[in-house]
């Protein structure tokens, strides 16, 4: 038997499903919503409803968007022949922060993960392969994480996409800026040496 009235218990249950929200936080949020005025509560409910109703995946790049194609794919000022492949839509923000990438994106929504039974056939790459096939791209930069899963995905993609006239590149891995090579582990150091460039 819950010690809260049924609608309250239901709200707490739903909030608890959110990442990083435990019982305590869920209760605090639920009581905050209960005490807030009707307009605020209604606006929150409407925002939750709208995000599901109006957002979808861009048909070109799989990014989450409210217009199709998304703002990046529809942009006249971005280089549409340069594509950066990322694992999740949230990775785009990290690359945009640099303000030095003027290409477009392709979102995989996951990585190859044999222990979870996820193979290449579950990756969303059909629309990227079509862009490559149609000769619409000059370079594909693979920006998956430097992990076993990220590497397996990158290696698989480069094999699948390789065509004459298309450059497939991998982001560099190595020593974080501002750190000390003395504290780099063996594998990070090895990758840094492999990815060295001429000065």
């Amino acid at each position, binding site marked *: 038997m819950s010690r809260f009235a049924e609608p309250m218990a239901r709200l707490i249950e739903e909030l608890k499903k959110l990442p990083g929200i435990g019982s305590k936080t869920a209760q605090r949020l639920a009581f905050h919503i209960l005490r807030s005025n009707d307009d605020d509560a209604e606006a929150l409910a409407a925002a939750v409803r709208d995000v599901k109703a109006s957002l979808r995946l861009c048909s070109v790049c799989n990014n989450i968007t409210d217009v199709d194609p998304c703002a990046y794919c529809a942009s006249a000022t971005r280089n549409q022949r340069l594509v950066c492949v990322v694992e999740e839509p949230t990775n785009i923000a990290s690359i945009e922060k640099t303000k030095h990438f003027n290409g477009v994106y392709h979102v995989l929504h996951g990585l190859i993960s044999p222990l979870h039974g996820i193979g290449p056939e579950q990756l969303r790459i059909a629309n990227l392969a079509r862009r490559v096939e149609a000769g619409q791209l000059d370079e594909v930069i693979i920006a998956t994480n430097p992990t*076993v899963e990220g590497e397996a995905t990158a290696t698989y993609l480069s094999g699948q996409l390789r065509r004459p006239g298309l450059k497939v590149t991998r982001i560099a891995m190595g020593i974080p800026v501002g750190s000390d090579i003395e504290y780099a582990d063996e594998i990070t150091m090895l990758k840094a040496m492999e990815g060295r460039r001429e000065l």
Partner: protein
Amino acid sequence: MALKESEAIVLRTYPLREADLLVTLFTRLEGKVRGVARSAKKSKRRFGGALEPLTYVRAFYEDRERQELARLDSCEVLESPLAAEVSYPRAVALSHVAELLDELLPDREPNDAVFRLVISVLAGLRGSDLWMPVTYFDLWMTRLMGYLPELSECNVCGRALNGSRAFFHALADGLMCAEDKRLASSEMSSESRKLAARMFLAPVEGFAGTPWPKAQGADLRKFLIQALQRHIEKKLVTAVMLERISS
């Protein structure tokens, strides 16, 4: 409590709470140990790439009073799977080794023979060779866990199978002669039975360097996976993934 130090193989990690990772290690000292790596998810600084599956590490951990999970203090990389190219087939093979160890090893029971097997098989999996080390690992793992039946005689009538046909079935232990085989059995070739016999006599390095197509020993691998799955009473995810690899 005192900090323990042991060579170990990282088997799997799972996110735990907001910033931590739950890590399953196969330690040389104590067998399979599960521990918490604090802040490993948020800050990669402390553990770096050391918690990637199938990394051979020197692990420092301590047990906590009245707690099942150890506290993982730090890991030093001795050999990383990322040092060689991670192709998709290699990633599946590495995951297969991790899954078998995770599913078959009991908690906190040292097993030096299995540990030495893993180290040598991981070395074999550094190159592009895949089916040889996987076959070797499946065979030896089944044997070291005590799940391997006698391959030279019929499990039903006891007749020697040397030179005659041998069959196996997902729901039955061991090999069967042509008379005792069940409906819809698979056949294990005498080449594969000879191969198994040779693999019991030589280290994994002894088989390196010769071409090994997927078809070689495929019946033996199927037989071994069926035996293991009967014992753990569940399907091995990576066995299906291996099956789907084309070459």
